[in-house]
């Protein structure tokens, strides 16, 4: 069956089609968001493996629960929110939260002092409360604008501003 949907089709229309079991529409949605979601999960978990598993799990559940999707609501926000939940659950379930930060940075830096700085910042990011880190990564890694982050996180733009300011404050402190 040929789908009338293509890469320019709006999210909303794609979701309508997915609800009608349109497999091609689902593929378009997958290709549209895969990279972004993988990057987001990667910066939260520091592991490509985990990021890939979680994103696959996410899309698997989206297809499995396609009847329940609501085309009137932003699918982008829904994907990020669900992925975020998956990550939080994953972190709670994995008994050790020790991500090897030194591994990540190793070999990347030339100057030692610089490297120390980076490890400090990375550690500070790790210590950020979940809701601050989510906002931060959406901005820093994904390049989303504040209003987009507000939609994804279901908070006001003012709250995004507040959280980002707090993040800057905390990360800056890591260098002192």
């Amino acid at each position: 069956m040929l789908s009338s949907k293509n890469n320019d089709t709006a999210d909303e229309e794609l979701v309508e089609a997915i609800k009608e079991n349109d497999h091609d529409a689902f593929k378009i949605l997958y290709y549209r968001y895969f990279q972004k979601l993988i990057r987001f999960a990667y910066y939260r978990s520091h592991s490509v493996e985990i990021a890939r598993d979680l994103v696959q799990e996410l899309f698997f559940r989206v297809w499995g629960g396609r009847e329940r999707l609501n085309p009137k609501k932003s699918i982008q926000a829904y994907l990020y929110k669900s992925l975020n939940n998956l990550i939080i659950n994953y972190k709670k379930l994995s008994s050790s939260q020790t991500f090897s930060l030194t591994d990540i940075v190793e070999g990347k830096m030339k100057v030692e002092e610089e490297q120390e700085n980076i490890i400090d910042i990375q550690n500070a990011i790790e210590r950020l409360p979940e809701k601050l880190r989510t906002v931060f990564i959406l901005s820093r890694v994904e390049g989303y604008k504040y209003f987009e982050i507000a939609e994804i996180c279901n908070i006001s733009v003012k709250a995004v501003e507040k959280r980002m300011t707090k993040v800057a404050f905390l990360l800056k402190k890591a260098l002192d």
Partner: protein
Amino acid sequence: MSKTEFIKFCVKSITGNIEEAEKRELDKLLSQSVENRIEFEKIQSVWEKSVTNENQELPDIDVEWESLNEKIRDVDKEYEKEKGSIFNKILVFTKSLFTPIWKPALAGLFIVAISVTVLLLSNKEEIVTFKTISTLNNERQTVQLPDGSTVKLNSGSSIGFPDKFIGEKREVKLEGEAFFSVTKNGKPFVITTENTRVTVLGTEFNVWTRDEKTKVIVKQGRVNVEQIKTKNENVILSKDQESIIRKNFKPSPPQNVNADYLLGWLDNKLVFNRTPLNEIAGELERFYNVKIELANDDLGNLTLTGSFENQKVESVLNMICLALNIEFTKTVEIINHEQKSYLIKSKNNL
């Protein structure tokens, strides 16, 4: 301008969220003092260093899509198969059977469905329809069987039975937990679970069966209990006795218990008697319609004795954790946001 306000503008500028008026104000502040410029540069440097490995190799999208696609196809196929199988066409089951939670029950009922078709052949005038009644979490139901026996179904359970009992035996299938009050009518009454066959003539007793484990507690009369796979191993239970049938093992010898106390669920109580935590979690899930996960399998072997009545799920969890020296947290449920979910873990687990 406060320091927080200043940092806010710096971050908005660095992330490209600053508005014209704000930008002008920030520029002014930066040109006014060296300290401000140092502060700005510091934030900028933190920002740059906060992401180090932009070039990390990400998974290949085409490969990933194919693997997801395969997984989805398998699931969809299975779904189609279920919808189109023969017994669905021959017999009318209640619709609730086809909700995915009852998959295990489905497998069991297929066997019954076959035996019914055999009955149809040998007894052409009689048409027997098989019925399944299922309860959801946090729901109980009393079912009247065609012979006048009654069955109280606990939460998240299902019972399958014909609309009339023909043949030598009265046969039913059970998944979950039910209390039976069986009438005497000369024909043996047989309950089959995943691993156990319970045979009675007329009496009151409780059958609990989940994950290939069955527990039978007798309140009145005598009950014959046998493991399906090792037929000759049977145990006869009388009033206030219990036998546990684990997976492929023979039934445990009769143990004296207080049936009224252990069958507290009939009075809306939760009663545990050296019950392992993994079973307790399941009981709580069905009783409160919540989701409970254990952080690791070892926790599932901890056992607890006690009863709870009229309490909120969180206070029950609190007491259980206190008794076992473990802890629980509320977690976020992905699929169903309305269902509360909890994680039970050991205390030293970070």
